[in-house]
């Protein structure tokens, strides 16, 4: 079941989705037993930004039919503090580390990529591009041109693999192609779908941030199509995610062309979901290869 992803050897194809597993907090809650049975074959950090962010005001969560809207707002301690305090702790996990970063300009992305890539604990970087470029006003990940030019700006800064996390709010194939042309080593998808909810007690928006992103089982059929179309459009490896809760779902994404898959929301329901999905996937792939 081991796979190579951009030259990184993974024991199995199941990663976590960025922002859906805090390995440091989980170790605090579950103890060192977590390290012995770490659910993912590589760990993807929550997205970090150059400066610390408090995140959005609560409420930040809203449960929907078979899904979850989150409006977390990327709370994080900022680049310096991440490198200083978090990275050494994450290195103890014993799996390859992929650090997710997000800036609002080429300069911010450059600072993040340079700072993170310099650390030997880091195996690869994921660029979270679901944010506006303050210079152009466009959401980088919704525009092939913005995505390509971002890649051209940061690609020269490191030889380490750069993964671009695609947004599902536009057809992702053209953006994936642009990312690959700009030098991305892999793409991952889907991020969450833009969504909102109303306070049941009255007409106001429920979420402190006004709106958020939908994830979980509800979005699985959307993710499957987007992964299939992106995998058909690019030659770089694809990390598929969106509503994976069983090995069969992971198998569907791999059939659709993904090299690896990630588990997000399902880890909330089952902290060891990644491990379960990996072992179910192993059985599933055996079954499919015998069909």
């Amino acid at each position, binding site marked *: 079941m081991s796979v190579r992803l951009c030259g990184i050897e993974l024991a199995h194809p199941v990663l976590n989705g960025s922002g859906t597993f805090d390995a440091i907090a989980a170790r605090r809650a579950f103890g060192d037993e977590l390290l012995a049975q770490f659910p993912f074959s590589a760990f993807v950090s929550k997205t970090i930004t150059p400066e610390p962010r408090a995140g959005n005001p609560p409420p930040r969560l809203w449960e*929907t039919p078979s899904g979850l809207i989150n409006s977390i707002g990327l709370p994080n301690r900022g680049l310096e503090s991440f490198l200083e305090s978090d990275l050494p702790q994450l290195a103890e996990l014993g799996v390859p580390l992929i650090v997710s970063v997000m800036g609002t300009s080429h300069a911010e992305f450059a600072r993040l990529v340079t700072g993170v890539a310099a650390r030997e604990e880091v195996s690869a970087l994921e660029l979270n591009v679901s944010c506006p470029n303050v210079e152009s006003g466009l959401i980088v990940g919704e525009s092939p041109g913005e995505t390509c030019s971002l890649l051209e700006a940061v690609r020269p800064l490191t030889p380490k693999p750069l993964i671009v996390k695609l947004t599902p709010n536009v057809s992702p194939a053209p953006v994936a192609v642009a990312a690959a042309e700009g030098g991305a080593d892999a793409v991952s998808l889907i991020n969450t779908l833009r969504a909102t909810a109303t306070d049941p007690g009255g007409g106001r928006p429920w979420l402190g941030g006004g709106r958020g992103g939908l994830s979980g089982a509800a979005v699985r059929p959307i993710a499957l199509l987007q992964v299939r179309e992106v995998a058909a459009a690019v030659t770089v490896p694809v990390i598929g995610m969106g509503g994976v809760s069983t090995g069969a779902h992971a198998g569907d994404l791999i059939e659709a062309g993904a090299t690896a898959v990630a588990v997000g929301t399902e880890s909330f329901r089952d902290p060891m979901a990644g491990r379960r999905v990996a072992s179910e996937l192993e059985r599933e792939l055996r079954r499919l290869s015998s069909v």
Partner: protein
Amino acid sequence: MRSAATPGLGARVTASLGRRACEVTRNVQAGGYRIFSALDRDGPEPAAGQFYMLATEAGWSAEEGRPYLARAFSVADCEPGPEGVRLDFLVHAVGPATRRLCALGEGERLWLHGPLGRPFAPPAELAPVTAGAILVGGGIGIAPLALWRRRLAGAGIPSRVLLGFRDSERSGGLDLFRCSEIKLASEDGHRGHHGHVTDLLEVMLEGDDAGSAAVYACGPPAMLEAVRLLCREHGVACELALEAPMACGFGACFGCAVPLAGGGYMRLCVDGPVVGGEEIETALVPGGGGH
């Protein structure tokens, strides 16, 4: 941080790794609430104030795809036995998850992970010269206080209990305090003081020895905020058990944000649910404690 005076009392218990299926051994009516028990064969005995994430094995998501996520519940009581730890929960049916849990049959299975979060700290840690504890609870919120009272009594620490209820429907949690001396308040005057439980607390705090007591409160947000302000006014240390919407319970989702007194947010699942009155900006957590 935790004192060694009463060994183990109030120390955070680390959760067993991952979720496990536990058998429901009892489910009884308690006023307008239900108290049900599950046998946790593999988990440790929780500390008072800690909580578990619960979901039923079958029929979760039975109302148009909801409940989708597991839900947080405080342990109301627990008892180690030869086969495992019996965990008691007090539940009020307010939405899809609590309706499903209230309908649990004996022998049905429950998914559970925990115990999670920061428990109550012993009075000696909160008040240097302690005259004991004052426990203030309201409605469904009295669950964690029931276990805390038992633990304090076990450690020989005196506690006084003040409980308030809106009406007799909502006084079902009293069953958990069967053999203790309690001062009651009810908003409809059906029992005890006709008014709020905080009226009782105010009288008590104006008494002689209260300055050296530690107050522990759990209940509706408005009650907690009143307790917090009363304690601040009287210079009395207090701990509050708060609620916030939680998707994971172990620090993974950053959804359970509670505003800190100094700005920014804490994750209630890992830095709470028990918090010091001075730590937070308000106990009126947006989106929390909807009922």
